[in-house]
C-alpha cells in the first residue's frame, strides 16, 4: 500500500513537472500562464511520498522512495505521451 501511495504521489508530481515544461505544453496545445496546481504538486507530493515511505524501516524507505520516483516517472511520461497522441498532434520532428 505504501509503495502504491508513493507511486501515485510521484506519478502526479512528475506529471505536474511535465505539464510545466514548454515543449510538452506546446505538444499538448496548452497556452501560456503560470498554473499553480502543477507547481504545488511537484513541490509537495514528493515530500508526501517521502513521509509515507518513512513509515517503512531504513533503508527500505529510501529505496522505495527512489524506486517509485523512477517507475512513477515512467508512468507519467507514458500518460503524457498518450495524451499528446490523443490530442491529435503526433509531431514528426
Amino acid at each position, binding site marked *: 500500500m505504501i*509503495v502504491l501511495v508513493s507511486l501515485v504521489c510521484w506519478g502526479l508530481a*512528475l*506529471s505536474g*513537472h*511535465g505539464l510545466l*515544461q*514548454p*515543449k*510538452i505544453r506546446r*505538444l499538448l496545445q496548452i497556452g501560456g500562464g503560470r498554473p499553480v496546481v502543477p507547481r504545488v504538486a511537484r513541490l509537495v507530493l514528493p515530500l508526501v511520498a517521502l513521509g509515507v515511505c518513512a513509515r517503512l524501516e531504513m*533503508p*527500505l524507505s529510501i*529505496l*522505495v522512495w*527512489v*524506486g*517509485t*520516483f*523512477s*517507475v512513477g*516517472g*515512467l508512468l*507519467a*511520461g*507514458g500518460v*503524457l*505521451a498518450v495524451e*499528446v*497522441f490523443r490530442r491529435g498532434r*503526433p*509531431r*514528426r*520532428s
Partner: protein
Amino acid sequence: MRDILRNRMGWLHAWVGFVGGLVLVVAFTGGTLALFDTEITRWMEPELAALPEAAMTGEALDHAGAQVWALREKGQNVFLNLPSARDPVLRILHYDGHAFVGPVLDPRDGTALHSRETRGGQLFFDLHQSLYRGPVWGNLVTEAAGIGLIVAVMSGVIIHFRNLASDLLLFRPFAAPGRAWLDAHLVAGVLLLPFIVMMAYTGAVIHAPRLFPMIGAGHAARPAGRPDAGMRVVGPYAPLAPMLAQAEDVFGRGRIGFVMFGTGTVSFYRADAADFAMTRDHADFSASDGRLVGVERIGHGMPRLGGAMRGLHFIRWGTPALRWLYFVCGVVGSMMMAAGLVLFLMKHRRVHGGTFRLALAETLALAVTLGLPLASLGYLWGSRLLPPELMHRADRETGVFFLVWLVALVHAGMRCFGGAVRPAWRDQACAIAVLGCGLPILDAMSRAGTALRLHADVYLAVDACALGFGLLALWGQRVIVRAR
C-alpha cells in the same frame, strides 16, 4: 566535427556505451531475471507444485543432517539450505561451478522429493555476474563493463545536462524513429539514473578485487572444485534441531538461512534475507555433542560496508514489492541500454551502411537485445520439454539456453550480413512472441496432474511475465512492419 567538450563526451558515451553495452545488456537482463532466481527455479521444478505448504519439523532437519553427513563422509562438499518464505523446501546443495544444485527434501520429514535436476534461475545469476565464463575472466569483463556503465552515465549526463530537468518526461513515440528512440533512451536513462548508478556502483564494488587484486584480501568467489575433498569426518553426530533452536536464540526466530558442515563443527548462518547488510554471521556448534562453541558477528561500522553493498545490490532482504520495483527498473534499464545500441547503429548506418563492421555490430546488438530474451524463454521451454529423468539434465537444459542463443546469433548474422536488418528484428520479435505467449499454455499442459491452480504463486507470476513480454514483442514486431 570540432574538438569540444560536448563532442568528446558524445564520442565517449557512444563508444563506451556501445562496446560496454553489448555486455551490459546481457548482465542487466540476467541480473533482472536473477532477482527472482528462486522463483524461476521453483517454476522449473513443477513436481514441487503439489507439495502442501508446511513448516519444517525437527525430525526433517535431523534426517536432512544425517544425509548431509553421509554425503560428506563420501567426500562431497555439500551444505543444507533451510526452508524460507521464497523456497519452502530443504535442499542439500553443492556448487557445480555455475550454480548451487542438489536434492530437494520434504520439510515435514526430510525425505527426498522427486524433482527434476535443474540449475533454475541461478543460470541468470551466473550470466549476470560472470557471463557464464567463470569467476576470473567473466567477473573481470562484467566489472570492466560496470565501470564503463558509470563512465557512460557520467558522459551522458554531461551531454544532456542542460535539458536534464526540462526533458525529463519528454517522450514522443510517434515522432520520427530516431527521435522516438532518443526520447526513450533519455527518459528511461534519466528517470532510472539513481537505480542504474547504484546498481553499477555496488556491483563494481562487490567484484572490485578482480580489478584491484593488490588491495585487500582477495575475491570471495567460490572455487568450482571440491576444496574439502580430502576431509573425512566420522560420526556419531548430534541432532541439528536443538542446535537450530540455540542459533535462533542468537539471531532470531526464522533468521537462519543455511547450515555449513566443517571438520567437527556445524555452523548455522544467518539468512541473507534477515538483514539489509548481507553479512555471514554464524553460530558454530560442536558436531559431536551439539554444544555452542562460538558466535561470529560482523560488527557495526566499516566491517559491514561490504555487506551493505551486497545487500543493496542483491536485495535478498527486500519485500516482494521492492523486488518488483527493482525488476521493473531492471527491465526498463535493459530496454534503455538496448535503445542506446539501436541509436548507435542508426547513427552509423547513414555513413557505414553495408560495411562488414556495421553488419557485425547489427548482428551482435540484435543477438543481445532480442536473442537473449529468446534464449531465456527457450530455457524455460526446455525445462518443461526435456524428460525429467534425463542424464546430466541440468547441463542439457543450460545447453538449450546457449543453443537457442547461438541460433539467434546465426540468424541475426545471416540476415544482417544479407542486408535484411529490419526483417531480422521482426523475426526474432515474432519468435519471442510465440515462446512468451505460449509459455502459460506449456505450463498448464506440463504441470497438469500435479497442482494446477489459478492463484497468485510463482507459476502464475512467471507465466504472466512471459505472456507480457510475448505481447510486448508482438506489438514490437507490428511496429517494425508498419515502419517499413
